[in-house]
Protein backbone atom coordinates (compact mmCIF):
# COMPACT_ATOMS: atom_id res chain seq x y z
CA UNK A 1 0.00 0.00 0.00
CA UNK A 2 1.42 3.35 -1.03
CA UNK A 3 0.35 6.94 -1.45
CA UNK A 4 0.48 8.43 -4.91
CA UNK A 5 1.44 12.11 -5.30
CA UNK A 6 -1.42 14.65 -5.47
CA UNK A 7 -2.71 15.28 -8.99
CA UNK A 8 -2.37 19.06 -9.43
CA UNK A 9 0.88 20.96 -9.98
CA UNK A 10 1.22 24.57 -8.82
CA UNK A 11 1.57 27.36 -11.39
CA UNK A 12 4.88 27.17 -13.35
CA UNK A 13 5.49 30.83 -12.50
CA UNK A 14 5.98 29.68 -8.88
CA UNK A 15 9.55 28.67 -9.82
CA UNK A 16 10.45 32.28 -10.54
CA UNK A 17 8.49 33.55 -7.57
CA UNK A 18 10.56 31.25 -5.32
CA UNK A 19 13.75 32.30 -7.12
CA UNK A 20 13.08 35.96 -6.36
CA UNK A 21 11.97 35.39 -2.77
CA UNK A 22 14.92 33.06 -2.02
CA UNK A 23 17.34 35.60 -3.53
CA UNK A 24 15.77 38.36 -1.42
CA UNK A 25 16.15 36.17 1.66
CA UNK A 26 19.84 35.42 1.02
CA UNK A 27 20.83 38.97 0.02
CA UNK A 28 21.02 40.29 3.62
CA UNK A 29 23.56 37.55 4.48
CA UNK A 30 25.82 38.68 1.66
CA UNK A 31 25.42 42.34 2.61
CA UNK A 32 26.14 41.61 6.28
CA UNK A 33 29.28 39.68 5.33
CA UNK A 34 30.46 42.59 3.18
CA UNK A 35 29.71 45.22 5.86
CA UNK A 36 31.56 43.29 8.57
CA UNK A 37 34.66 42.48 6.52
CA UNK A 38 34.94 45.12 3.78
CA UNK A 39 33.43 48.15 5.50
CA UNK A 40 34.08 47.75 9.25
CA UNK A 41 37.20 45.59 8.80
CA UNK A 42 36.38 43.36 11.76
CA UNK A 43 38.11 40.47 10.10
CA UNK A 44 39.43 39.60 6.68
CA UNK A 45 37.31 37.32 4.52
CA UNK A 46 39.70 35.57 2.14
CA UNK A 47 38.92 35.62 -1.56
CA UNK A 48 38.28 31.89 -1.79
CA UNK A 49 35.64 32.10 0.98
CA UNK A 50 33.84 34.82 -0.98
CA UNK A 51 33.83 32.52 -3.99
CA UNK A 52 32.50 29.58 -1.93
CA UNK A 53 29.73 31.66 -0.32
CA UNK A 54 28.62 33.27 -3.59
CA UNK A 55 28.67 29.98 -5.51
CA UNK A 56 26.73 28.18 -2.76
CA UNK A 57 24.08 30.88 -2.67
CA UNK A 58 23.81 31.06 -6.45
CA UNK A 59 23.43 27.30 -6.62
CA UNK A 60 20.71 27.43 -3.97
CA UNK A 61 18.79 30.17 -5.75
CA UNK A 62 19.17 28.45 -9.13
CA UNK A 63 18.36 24.88 -8.10
CA UNK A 64 16.12 24.79 -5.04
CA UNK A 65 13.12 26.62 -6.57
CA UNK A 66 13.18 24.22 -9.55
CA UNK A 67 13.40 21.23 -7.21
CA UNK A 68 10.56 22.66 -5.11
CA UNK A 69 8.41 23.01 -8.22
CA UNK A 70 8.88 19.32 -8.96
CA UNK A 71 7.69 18.42 -5.47
CA UNK A 72 4.86 20.89 -4.77
CA UNK A 73 1.49 19.40 -5.66
CA UNK A 74 -2.06 19.47 -4.33
CA UNK A 75 -5.42 17.82 -4.69
CA UNK A 76 -8.92 18.43 -3.36
CA UNK A 77 -11.63 15.80 -3.32
CA UNK A 78 -15.13 15.84 -1.84
CA UNK A 79 -13.79 14.17 1.31
CA UNK A 80 -10.23 15.41 1.85
CA UNK A 81 -7.43 17.85 1.00
CA UNK A 82 -4.02 16.45 0.09
CA UNK A 83 -0.83 18.48 -0.36
CA UNK A 84 2.82 17.71 -1.03
CA UNK A 85 5.50 20.31 -0.26
CA UNK A 86 9.22 20.67 0.46
CA UNK A 87 12.35 19.68 -1.46
CA UNK A 88 15.02 17.99 0.70
CA UNK A 89 12.39 16.98 3.20
CA UNK A 90 9.16 16.08 1.46
CA UNK A 91 5.95 16.58 3.38
CA UNK A 92 2.62 15.03 2.44
CA UNK A 93 -0.38 16.23 4.41
CA UNK A 94 -3.91 14.91 4.39
CA UNK A 95 -6.84 16.52 6.20
CA UNK A 96 -10.46 15.42 6.00
CA UNK A 97 -13.00 18.03 4.86
CA UNK A 98 -15.03 17.43 8.03
CA UNK A 99 -12.14 18.82 10.09
CA UNK A 100 -11.39 21.94 8.03
CA UNK A 101 -11.83 25.05 10.18
CA UNK A 102 -10.66 28.03 8.14
CA UNK A 103 -9.55 28.63 4.57
CA UNK A 104 -7.24 31.63 4.03
CA UNK A 105 -6.25 33.31 0.81
CA UNK A 106 -3.05 35.36 0.95
CA UNK A 107 -1.03 37.33 -1.57
CA UNK A 108 2.49 38.40 -0.53
CA UNK A 109 4.50 41.19 -2.16
CA UNK A 110 6.62 38.86 -4.33
CA UNK A 111 3.59 36.72 -5.13
CA UNK A 112 1.76 39.83 -6.40
CA UNK A 113 4.61 40.48 -8.85
CA UNK A 114 3.86 37.13 -10.47
CA UNK A 115 0.09 37.14 -10.06
CA UNK A 116 0.23 34.24 -7.60
CA UNK A 117 -1.42 33.50 -4.26
CA UNK A 118 -1.23 31.15 -1.28
CA UNK A 119 -4.14 29.15 0.13
CA UNK A 120 -3.90 27.97 3.71
CA UNK A 121 -6.26 25.45 5.26
CA UNK A 122 -6.32 25.12 9.04
CA UNK A 123 -7.73 22.40 11.28
CA UNK A 124 -8.28 22.20 15.03
CA UNK A 125 -4.70 20.97 15.44
CA UNK A 126 -2.08 23.71 15.37
CA UNK A 127 0.26 21.10 13.84
CA UNK A 128 -2.12 20.29 11.03
CA UNK A 129 -2.35 23.32 8.71
CA UNK A 130 -2.02 22.71 4.95
CA UNK A 131 -0.44 25.40 2.77
CA UNK A 132 -0.56 25.55 -1.02
CA UNK A 133 1.87 28.15 -2.36
CA UNK A 134 2.23 29.43 -5.90
CA UNK A 135 -1.34 29.16 -7.16
CA UNK A 136 -2.65 31.40 -9.90
CA UNK A 137 -4.65 34.17 -8.16
CA UNK A 138 -7.92 33.46 -9.94
CA UNK A 139 -7.49 29.74 -9.43
CA UNK A 140 -6.75 30.37 -5.75
CA UNK A 141 -10.01 32.27 -5.25
CA UNK A 142 -11.90 29.49 -7.01
CA UNK A 143 -10.21 26.95 -4.78
CA UNK A 144 -11.14 28.89 -1.62
CA UNK A 145 -14.75 28.98 -2.78
CA UNK A 146 -14.76 25.30 -3.60
CA UNK A 147 -13.18 24.38 -0.26
CA UNK A 148 -15.64 26.53 1.66
CA UNK A 149 -18.54 24.97 -0.22
CA UNK A 150 -17.40 21.39 0.42
CA UNK A 151 -16.48 22.04 4.05
CA UNK A 152 -19.95 23.51 4.62
CA UNK A 153 -21.78 20.55 3.17
CA UNK A 154 -19.76 17.94 5.10
CA UNK A 155 -21.30 17.33 8.55
CA UNK A 156 -19.23 17.68 11.72
CA UNK A 157 -18.22 20.53 14.01
CA UNK A 158 -14.57 20.43 12.92
CA UNK A 159 -13.18 19.61 16.38
Amino acid sequence: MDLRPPSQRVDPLARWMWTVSDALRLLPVLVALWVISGYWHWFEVPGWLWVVVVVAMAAYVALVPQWRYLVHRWEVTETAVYTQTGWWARERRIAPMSRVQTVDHRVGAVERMFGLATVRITTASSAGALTIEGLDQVQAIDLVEELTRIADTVPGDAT
Partner: protein
Amino acid sequence: MDVYDQLLGWQRLDRRMLLVQPVREVGRFLPALIGVALFGRSAEGGGLWGIFGVVVPVALGLMRYATTGYRITESRVEVRHGLVSKRVVAAPLDRVRTVDLTASPIHRLLGLVTLRIGTGQAGDKNEERLALDGLAGPAAAELRTRLLQGSVSAAEPDGSPVADEQPEVALRLDLGWVRFAPLTTSGIVIAGAALGVIAQSFRSLEILPSVDLDRAERLGAFALIVLVVLGILVTFCVLAVVGYLLTNFGFVLTRRRDDDTWHLRRGLLTTRETTLDHARISGVSIGEPLGLRLARGGRLSAIVTGLSKKQQGSAVLVPPAPRAEVDRVAVAVLGISGPVADPLVRHHDRARRRRWTRALLGAGLVSVALLLLAYAASWWLAALVPVALLVGAGLAHDRWRALGHALVDGYLVSRSGSLNRRREVLHTSSVIGWTFTSTYPQRRAGLVDLTATTAGGRQRVTVLDVEEGLSCELANEATPGLLEPFLA
Protein backbone atom coordinates in the same frame (compact mmCIF):
# COMPACT_ATOMS: atom_id res chain seq x y z
CA MET B 1 -21.87 47.61 38.41
CA ASP B 2 -25.38 48.81 39.15
CA VAL B 3 -28.84 47.48 39.87
CA TYR B 4 -29.46 46.62 36.24
CA ASP B 5 -26.31 44.60 36.09
CA GLN B 6 -27.38 42.62 39.12
CA LEU B 7 -30.77 42.01 37.59
CA LEU B 8 -29.04 40.67 34.51
CA GLY B 9 -27.18 38.21 36.68
CA TRP B 10 -23.72 39.81 36.69
CA GLN B 11 -21.65 38.89 39.69
CA ARG B 12 -18.54 40.44 41.15
CA LEU B 13 -15.27 39.09 42.45
CA ASP B 14 -14.97 38.68 46.19
CA ARG B 15 -14.36 41.92 48.09
CA ARG B 16 -11.40 40.34 49.89
CA MET B 17 -9.40 40.37 46.65
CA LEU B 18 -8.79 44.08 47.31
CA LEU B 19 -6.43 42.95 50.06
CA VAL B 20 -4.39 40.70 47.78
CA GLN B 21 -2.32 43.45 46.19
CA PRO B 22 -1.51 45.31 49.47
CA VAL B 23 -0.52 42.07 51.19
CA ARG B 24 1.63 41.12 48.20
CA GLU B 25 3.34 44.52 48.28
CA VAL B 26 4.07 44.16 51.99
CA GLY B 27 5.44 40.71 51.23
CA ARG B 28 7.76 42.17 48.65
CA PHE B 29 9.18 44.63 51.18
CA LEU B 30 9.48 41.99 53.86
CA PRO B 31 13.07 40.92 53.05
CA ALA B 32 14.14 44.55 53.09
CA LEU B 33 12.33 45.13 56.39
CA ILE B 34 14.00 42.08 57.92
CA GLY B 35 17.29 43.36 56.61
CA VAL B 36 16.73 46.69 58.32
CA ALA B 37 15.71 45.03 61.55
CA LEU B 38 18.59 42.54 61.64
CA PHE B 39 21.46 44.49 60.21
CA GLY B 40 20.30 48.05 60.64
CA ARG B 41 20.68 48.97 57.03
CA SER B 42 18.45 49.01 53.99
CA ALA B 43 19.25 47.50 50.64
CA GLU B 44 18.03 50.26 48.38
CA GLY B 45 16.52 53.72 48.78
CA GLY B 46 12.78 53.55 48.14
CA GLY B 47 11.42 57.01 48.83
CA LEU B 48 8.88 58.47 46.47
CA TRP B 49 9.26 55.67 43.95
CA GLY B 50 8.57 53.13 46.68
CA ILE B 51 5.27 54.80 47.50
CA PHE B 52 4.46 55.02 43.80
CA GLY B 53 5.18 51.33 43.49
CA VAL B 54 2.64 50.59 46.23
CA VAL B 55 -0.10 53.00 45.25
CA VAL B 56 -0.29 52.09 41.57
CA PRO B 57 -0.80 48.30 42.01
CA VAL B 58 -3.38 48.92 44.73
CA ALA B 59 -5.27 51.39 42.50
CA LEU B 60 -5.11 48.90 39.64
CA GLY B 61 -6.49 46.18 41.91
CA LEU B 62 -9.34 48.49 42.94
CA MET B 63 -10.13 49.20 39.32
CA ARG B 64 -10.05 45.53 38.46
CA TYR B 65 -12.46 44.77 41.28
CA ALA B 66 -14.81 47.51 40.12
CA THR B 67 -14.83 46.50 36.48
CA THR B 68 -14.61 42.70 36.46
CA GLY B 69 -17.84 40.77 36.33
CA TYR B 70 -19.05 37.33 35.35
CA ARG B 71 -22.29 35.49 34.80
CA ILE B 72 -23.56 32.16 33.57
CA THR B 73 -26.51 32.12 31.24
CA GLU B 74 -28.24 28.99 30.08
CA SER B 75 -25.73 28.22 27.39
CA ARG B 76 -22.75 30.51 27.96
CA VAL B 77 -20.32 31.80 30.53
CA GLU B 78 -19.41 35.45 30.20
CA VAL B 79 -16.58 37.43 31.75
CA ARG B 80 -16.22 41.16 31.32
CA HIS B 81 -13.30 43.49 31.92
CA GLY B 82 -12.33 47.08 31.38
CA LEU B 83 -13.25 50.56 32.53
CA VAL B 84 -13.11 52.64 29.38
CA SER B 85 -13.35 49.99 26.69
CA LYS B 86 -15.56 47.31 28.13
CA ARG B 87 -14.97 43.86 26.82
CA VAL B 88 -17.14 40.83 27.31
CA VAL B 89 -15.57 37.45 26.67
CA ALA B 90 -18.11 34.70 26.23
CA ALA B 91 -17.66 30.96 25.84
CA PRO B 92 -20.31 28.32 25.20
CA LEU B 93 -20.69 26.04 28.22
CA ASP B 94 -20.29 22.92 26.09
CA ARG B 95 -16.84 24.16 25.09
CA VAL B 96 -15.54 24.14 28.66
CA ARG B 97 -12.75 21.51 28.80
CA THR B 98 -11.11 22.16 32.12
CA VAL B 99 -11.59 24.31 35.17
CA ASP B 100 -8.52 25.28 37.16
CA LEU B 101 -8.55 26.63 40.70
CA THR B 102 -5.26 28.04 41.95
CA ALA B 103 -4.56 29.73 45.24
CA SER B 104 -1.30 31.44 46.12
CA PRO B 105 -0.37 31.61 49.81
CA ILE B 106 -1.87 35.11 49.98
CA HIS B 107 -5.06 33.89 48.37
CA ARG B 108 -5.21 31.02 50.84
CA LEU B 109 -4.69 33.39 53.74
CA LEU B 110 -7.70 35.39 52.56
CA GLY B 111 -9.77 32.34 51.57
CA LEU B 112 -9.70 33.21 47.88
CA VAL B 113 -8.95 31.32 44.66
CA THR B 114 -8.30 32.14 41.02
CA LEU B 115 -10.58 30.30 38.61
CA ARG B 116 -9.44 29.66 35.05
CA ILE B 117 -11.69 28.27 32.37
CA GLY B 118 -10.05 26.22 29.63
CA THR B 119 -12.16 26.28 26.48
CA GLY B 120 -9.58 24.98 24.08
CA GLN B 121 -9.66 27.65 21.43
CA ALA B 122 -6.11 26.85 20.38
CA GLY B 123 -3.91 29.94 20.46
CA ASP B 124 -6.77 32.24 21.36
CA LYS B 125 -6.11 35.27 23.54
CA ASN B 126 -9.47 34.75 25.18
CA GLU B 127 -7.99 32.01 27.34
CA GLU B 128 -6.27 34.54 29.58
CA ARG B 129 -9.38 36.66 29.85
CA LEU B 130 -11.53 33.75 30.96
CA ALA B 131 -9.83 33.93 34.34
CA LEU B 132 -11.40 35.22 37.54
CA ASP B 133 -8.74 36.25 40.06
CA GLY B 134 -10.26 36.53 43.50
CA LEU B 135 -13.35 34.42 44.11
CA ALA B 136 -14.30 33.13 47.54
CA GLY B 137 -13.52 29.41 47.88
CA PRO B 138 -17.13 28.13 48.10
CA ALA B 139 -18.33 30.45 45.33
CA ALA B 140 -15.56 29.16 43.06
CA ALA B 141 -16.38 25.53 43.82
CA GLU B 142 -20.03 26.16 43.02
CA LEU B 143 -19.14 27.97 39.81
CA ARG B 144 -16.92 25.07 38.78
CA THR B 145 -19.72 22.58 39.32
CA ARG B 146 -22.09 24.64 37.21
CA LEU B 147 -19.52 25.13 34.46
CA LEU B 148 -18.76 21.44 34.16
CA GLN B 149 -22.36 20.34 34.46
CA GLY B 150 -23.07 22.53 31.47
CA SER B 151 -20.39 20.85 29.44
CA VAL B 152 -21.26 17.32 30.50
CA SER B 153 -25.02 17.61 30.03
CA ALA B 154 -24.36 19.04 26.60
CA ALA B 155 -22.18 16.06 25.76
CA GLU B 156 -24.75 13.53 26.94
CA PRO B 157 -28.24 15.05 26.90
CA ASP B 158 -29.84 12.24 28.84
CA GLY B 159 -27.22 12.02 31.60
CA SER B 160 -28.81 13.51 34.69
CA PRO B 161 -26.09 14.12 37.26
CA VAL B 162 -26.53 12.34 40.56
CA ALA B 163 -25.32 14.48 43.43
CA ASP B 164 -22.87 13.55 46.17
CA GLU B 165 -21.34 10.31 45.10
CA GLN B 166 -18.09 9.44 46.82
CA PRO B 167 -15.22 10.08 44.40
CA GLU B 168 -12.80 7.18 43.99
CA VAL B 169 -9.14 7.92 44.58
CA ALA B 170 -6.95 6.92 41.64
CA LEU B 171 -3.64 8.17 42.97
CA ARG B 172 -2.29 9.66 46.16
CA LEU B 173 1.23 11.03 46.47
CA ASP B 174 3.71 8.89 48.39
CA LEU B 175 6.36 11.09 49.98
CA GLY B 176 8.96 8.48 49.02
CA TRP B 177 8.54 9.56 45.40
CA VAL B 178 10.60 12.69 46.04
CA ARG B 179 13.56 10.44 45.18
CA PHE B 180 12.58 10.99 41.52
CA ALA B 181 12.74 14.78 41.83
CA PRO B 182 16.45 15.29 41.00
CA LEU B 183 16.16 12.97 37.98
CA THR B 184 13.90 15.19 35.90
CA THR B 185 14.71 18.21 33.78
CA SER B 186 12.01 20.24 35.51
CA GLY B 187 13.81 19.43 38.76
CA ILE B 188 16.98 20.92 37.27
CA VAL B 189 15.13 24.05 36.15
CA ILE B 190 13.40 24.52 39.50
CA ALA B 191 16.68 24.03 41.36
CA GLY B 192 18.40 26.57 39.08
CA ALA B 193 15.63 29.12 39.58
CA ALA B 194 15.73 28.61 43.35
CA LEU B 195 19.52 29.06 43.38
CA GLY B 196 19.05 32.32 41.48
CA VAL B 197 16.49 33.61 43.95
CA ILE B 198 18.67 32.65 46.92
CA ALA B 199 21.72 34.35 45.41
CA GLN B 200 19.64 37.42 44.69
CA SER B 201 18.29 37.71 48.23
CA PHE B 202 21.79 37.24 49.66
CA ARG B 203 22.94 40.09 47.48
CA SER B 204 20.05 42.37 48.41
CA LEU B 205 20.81 41.72 52.09
CA GLU B 206 24.49 42.35 51.33
CA ILE B 207 25.64 39.09 52.84
CA LEU B 208 28.74 37.81 51.13
CA PRO B 209 29.94 34.29 51.78
CA SER B 210 33.43 34.59 53.22
CA VAL B 211 36.16 32.24 52.07
CA ASP B 212 39.11 31.46 54.28
CA LEU B 213 41.90 31.10 51.74
CA ASP B 214 44.49 29.70 54.16
CA ARG B 215 42.26 26.85 55.18
CA ALA B 216 41.46 26.14 51.53
CA GLU B 217 45.14 25.83 50.74
CA ARG B 218 45.72 23.34 53.50
CA LEU B 219 42.92 21.10 52.18
CA GLY B 220 44.55 20.80 48.82
CA ALA B 221 43.13 21.49 45.40
CA PHE B 222 41.74 18.01 44.75
CA ALA B 223 39.82 17.75 48.01
CA LEU B 224 38.50 21.24 47.40
CA ILE B 225 37.15 20.34 43.97
CA VAL B 226 35.52 17.19 45.35
CA LEU B 227 33.97 19.23 48.17
CA VAL B 228 32.64 21.89 45.81
CA VAL B 229 31.16 19.30 43.43
CA LEU B 230 29.59 17.42 46.34
CA GLY B 231 28.22 20.65 47.74
CA ILE B 232 26.68 21.62 44.42
CA LEU B 233 25.19 18.13 44.00
CA VAL B 234 23.67 18.09 47.48
CA THR B 235 22.27 21.63 47.13
CA PHE B 236 20.90 20.69 43.78
CA CYS B 237 19.16 17.57 45.07
CA VAL B 238 17.71 19.41 48.03
CA LEU B 239 16.36 22.17 45.81
CA ALA B 240 14.87 19.71 43.33
CA VAL B 241 13.14 17.89 46.19
CA VAL B 242 11.82 21.18 47.56
CA GLY B 243 10.55 22.12 44.10
CA TYR B 244 8.87 18.72 43.72
CA LEU B 245 7.15 19.14 47.08
CA LEU B 246 6.11 22.73 46.34
CA THR B 247 4.32 21.63 43.17
CA ASN B 248 3.14 18.16 44.08
CA PHE B 249 2.62 18.04 47.84
CA GLY B 250 -0.73 16.47 48.65
CA PHE B 251 -1.19 15.28 45.07
CA VAL B 252 -4.53 13.48 44.87
CA LEU B 253 -6.16 12.31 41.66
CA THR B 254 -9.78 11.29 41.99
CA ARG B 255 -12.51 10.26 39.63
CA ARG B 256 -16.15 11.14 40.02
CA ARG B 257 -18.44 8.75 38.22
CA ASP B 258 -21.59 10.88 38.51
CA ASP B 259 -20.47 13.71 36.24
CA ASP B 260 -17.57 11.72 34.76
CA THR B 261 -14.71 14.03 35.64
CA TRP B 262 -11.16 13.65 36.86
CA HIS B 263 -10.20 15.86 39.72
CA LEU B 264 -6.65 16.74 40.66
CA ARG B 265 -5.36 18.62 43.67
CA ARG B 266 -1.74 19.49 44.44
CA GLY B 267 0.60 22.11 45.81
CA LEU B 268 2.25 22.97 49.10
CA LEU B 269 2.06 26.77 49.26
CA THR B 270 0.20 27.57 46.07
CA THR B 271 -2.51 24.96 45.71
CA ARG B 272 -3.90 24.03 42.38
CA GLU B 273 -7.07 22.09 41.60
CA THR B 274 -7.88 20.95 38.10
CA THR B 275 -11.04 19.28 36.89
CA LEU B 276 -10.93 17.44 33.58
CA ASP B 277 -13.95 16.30 31.61
CA HIS B 278 -13.38 12.56 30.98
CA ALA B 279 -15.08 12.71 27.59
CA ARG B 280 -12.40 15.16 26.44
CA ILE B 281 -9.46 12.92 27.29
CA SER B 282 -8.41 11.54 23.93
CA GLY B 283 -5.27 9.78 25.09
CA VAL B 284 -2.29 9.80 27.43
CA SER B 285 1.41 10.46 27.17
CA ILE B 286 3.74 8.36 29.32
CA GLY B 287 7.01 10.21 29.82
CA GLU B 288 10.18 8.28 30.65
CA PRO B 289 13.13 10.67 30.49
CA LEU B 290 16.46 8.87 30.82
CA GLY B 291 16.96 9.76 34.49
CA LEU B 292 13.50 8.60 35.52
CA ARG B 293 13.79 5.47 33.41
CA LEU B 294 17.04 4.40 35.10
CA ALA B 295 15.26 4.69 38.47
CA ARG B 296 12.23 2.79 37.08
CA GLY B 297 10.06 5.88 37.17
CA GLY B 298 7.89 7.81 34.79
CA ARG B 299 5.19 10.40 34.61
CA LEU B 300 1.84 10.72 32.95
CA SER B 301 -0.15 13.47 31.32
CA ALA B 302 -3.47 13.42 29.53
CA ILE B 303 -4.01 14.47 25.93
CA VAL B 304 -7.09 16.64 26.31
CA THR B 305 -8.98 17.66 23.19
CA GLY B 306 -8.83 21.40 22.84
CA LEU B 307 -6.06 22.04 25.34
CA SER B 308 -3.08 23.64 23.63
CA LYS B 309 0.59 23.11 24.43
CA LYS B 310 0.67 26.11 26.76
CA GLN B 311 -1.93 24.59 29.05
CA GLN B 312 -0.10 21.30 29.51
CA GLY B 313 0.07 22.00 33.26
CA SER B 314 -3.66 21.37 33.40
CA ALA B 315 -3.26 17.88 32.01
CA VAL B 316 -0.81 16.28 34.46
CA LEU B 317 -2.12 12.98 35.77
CA VAL B 318 0.89 11.52 37.59
CA PRO B 319 3.96 13.47 38.76
CA PRO B 320 7.37 11.73 38.61
CA ALA B 321 6.52 8.41 40.30
CA PRO B 322 7.27 4.67 40.05
CA ARG B 323 6.52 3.28 36.61
CA ALA B 324 4.01 0.78 38.01
CA GLU B 325 1.88 3.61 39.41
CA VAL B 326 2.09 5.46 36.09
CA ASP B 327 0.90 2.41 34.19
CA ARG B 328 -1.89 1.72 36.67
CA VAL B 329 -3.32 5.24 36.35
CA ALA B 330 -2.91 5.20 32.56
CA VAL B 331 -4.94 1.98 32.39
CA ALA B 332 -7.57 3.48 34.71
CA VAL B 333 -7.89 6.58 32.54
CA LEU B 334 -8.08 4.67 29.25
CA GLY B 335 -10.26 1.91 30.64
CA ILE B 336 -8.17 -0.78 28.90
CA SER B 337 -4.64 -2.06 29.36
CA GLY B 338 -3.63 -2.87 25.78
CA PRO B 339 -2.26 0.50 24.67
CA VAL B 340 -0.20 0.82 27.86
CA ALA B 341 1.18 -2.67 28.31
CA ASP B 342 1.13 -4.45 24.95
CA PRO B 343 4.46 -4.93 23.16
CA LEU B 344 5.01 -2.63 20.19
CA VAL B 345 5.80 -3.45 16.58
CA ARG B 346 9.55 -3.06 16.09
CA HIS B 347 10.75 -1.03 13.14
CA HIS B 348 12.77 -2.23 10.18
CA ASP B 349 16.52 -2.71 10.36
CA ARG B 350 16.93 0.31 8.08
CA ALA B 351 15.48 2.44 10.89
CA ARG B 352 18.21 1.08 13.17
CA ARG B 353 20.87 2.01 10.63
CA ARG B 354 19.42 5.51 10.44
CA ARG B 355 19.56 5.95 14.22
CA TRP B 356 23.21 4.90 14.14
CA THR B 357 24.28 7.09 11.21
CA ARG B 358 22.55 10.11 12.68
CA ALA B 359 23.99 9.68 16.18
CA LEU B 360 27.50 8.89 14.92
CA LEU B 361 27.39 11.81 12.48
CA GLY B 362 26.65 14.12 15.41
CA ALA B 363 29.32 12.52 17.57
CA GLY B 364 31.76 12.74 14.63
CA LEU B 365 31.16 16.48 14.23
CA VAL B 366 31.70 17.00 17.95
CA SER B 367 34.90 14.94 17.73
CA VAL B 368 36.26 17.04 14.85
CA ALA B 369 35.48 20.22 16.79
CA LEU B 370 37.22 18.75 19.86
CA LEU B 371 40.29 17.78 17.82
CA LEU B 372 40.49 21.28 16.33
CA LEU B 373 40.22 22.76 19.81
CA ALA B 374 42.83 20.32 21.07
CA TYR B 375 45.18 21.41 18.30
CA ALA B 376 44.56 25.10 19.05
CA ALA B 377 44.40 25.05 22.84
CA SER B 378 45.22 21.99 24.89
CA TRP B 379 45.92 18.36 23.96
CA TRP B 380 43.87 17.23 26.93
CA LEU B 381 40.67 17.84 24.97
CA ALA B 382 41.52 15.02 22.57
CA ALA B 383 40.84 12.61 25.44
CA LEU B 384 37.17 13.61 25.22
CA VAL B 385 36.82 12.25 21.67
CA PRO B 386 36.23 8.61 22.75
CA VAL B 387 33.72 9.90 25.31
CA ALA B 388 31.78 11.75 22.60
CA LEU B 389 31.79 8.65 20.38
CA LEU B 390 30.65 6.43 23.26
CA VAL B 391 27.81 8.80 24.13
CA GLY B 392 26.79 8.85 20.46
CA ALA B 393 26.76 5.06 20.30
CA GLY B 394 24.76 4.85 23.53
CA LEU B 395 22.21 7.31 22.24
CA ALA B 396 21.89 5.48 18.93
CA HIS B 397 21.30 2.15 20.66
CA ASP B 398 18.83 3.55 23.15
CA ARG B 399 16.94 5.51 20.52
CA TRP B 400 16.69 2.39 18.39
CA ARG B 401 15.39 0.36 21.32
CA ALA B 402 12.69 2.99 21.91
CA LEU B 403 11.28 2.88 18.38
CA GLY B 404 7.93 1.16 18.14
CA HIS B 405 4.30 1.59 17.26
CA ALA B 406 1.00 -0.24 17.48
CA LEU B 407 -2.69 0.06 16.77
CA VAL B 408 -4.44 -1.50 19.77
CA ASP B 409 -8.12 -1.36 20.72
CA GLY B 410 -8.71 1.77 18.65
CA TYR B 411 -5.65 3.55 19.98
CA LEU B 412 -2.61 4.65 18.02
CA VAL B 413 0.49 3.99 20.15
CA SER B 414 3.93 5.37 19.40
CA ARG B 415 7.17 5.33 21.35
CA SER B 416 10.42 7.11 20.60
CA GLY B 417 13.28 9.10 22.11
CA SER B 418 16.07 8.42 24.54
CA LEU B 419 16.83 11.40 26.75
CA ASN B 420 13.16 12.25 26.64
CA ARG B 421 11.44 8.99 25.79
CA ARG B 422 7.67 9.09 25.45
CA ARG B 423 5.03 6.48 24.81
CA GLU B 424 2.06 8.31 23.36
CA VAL B 425 -1.40 6.81 23.18
CA LEU B 426 -4.06 8.55 21.10
CA HIS B 427 -7.58 7.41 20.30
CA THR B 428 -8.02 7.16 16.54
CA SER B 429 -11.27 9.13 16.65
CA SER B 430 -9.19 12.11 17.81
CA VAL B 431 -6.83 11.92 14.84
CA ILE B 432 -7.58 14.91 12.64
CA GLY B 433 -5.21 14.38 9.73
CA TRP B 434 -1.91 12.84 8.71
CA THR B 435 1.51 14.18 7.78
CA PHE B 436 4.08 11.97 6.03
CA THR B 437 7.53 13.57 6.23
CA SER B 438 10.59 12.08 4.58
CA THR B 439 13.97 13.67 3.98
CA TYR B 440 16.10 12.64 1.01
CA PRO B 441 18.04 9.94 2.96
CA GLN B 442 14.77 8.66 4.43
CA ARG B 443 13.24 8.30 0.96
CA ARG B 444 16.29 6.37 -0.17
CA ALA B 445 15.87 4.03 2.78
CA GLY B 446 12.14 3.74 2.15
CA LEU B 447 11.28 5.18 5.54
CA VAL B 448 8.92 7.95 6.59
CA ASP B 449 7.92 9.85 9.74
CA LEU B 450 4.18 9.41 10.15
CA THR B 451 2.47 12.11 12.19
CA ALA B 452 -1.12 12.05 13.38
CA THR B 453 -2.32 15.58 14.11
CA THR B 454 -4.75 16.15 16.94
CA ALA B 455 -6.33 19.03 18.82
CA GLY B 456 -4.85 18.21 22.22
CA GLY B 457 -1.58 17.94 24.10
CA ARG B 458 1.44 18.40 21.86
CA GLN B 459 -0.93 18.59 18.88
CA ARG B 460 0.69 15.58 17.23
CA VAL B 461 1.79 11.99 17.73
CA THR B 462 4.70 10.92 15.52
CA VAL B 463 5.78 7.44 14.54
CA LEU B 464 9.46 7.81 13.58
CA ASP B 465 11.12 5.99 10.68
CA VAL B 466 8.42 3.53 9.76
CA GLU B 467 8.47 1.76 6.38
CA GLU B 468 6.54 3.64 3.68
CA GLY B 469 4.05 0.87 2.94
CA LEU B 470 3.44 0.19 6.61
CA SER B 471 2.84 3.89 7.30
CA CYS B 472 -0.02 3.93 4.77
CA GLU B 473 -1.50 0.74 6.17
CA LEU B 474 -1.34 2.16 9.69
CA ALA B 475 -2.99 5.46 8.72
CA ASN B 476 -5.57 3.69 6.60
CA GLU B 477 -6.50 1.34 9.41
CA ALA B 478 -6.67 4.13 11.99
CA THR B 479 -8.88 6.41 9.89
CA PRO B 480 -10.73 4.19 7.40
CA GLY B 481 -11.56 5.85 4.12
CA LEU B 482 -9.52 9.03 4.54
CA LEU B 483 -6.52 7.87 2.51
CA GLU B 484 -8.44 5.79 0.01
CA PRO B 485 -8.71 8.36 -2.83
CA PHE B 486 -4.96 8.93 -2.71
CA LEU B 487 -3.66 5.37 -2.65
CA ALA B 488 -1.63 4.25 -5.60
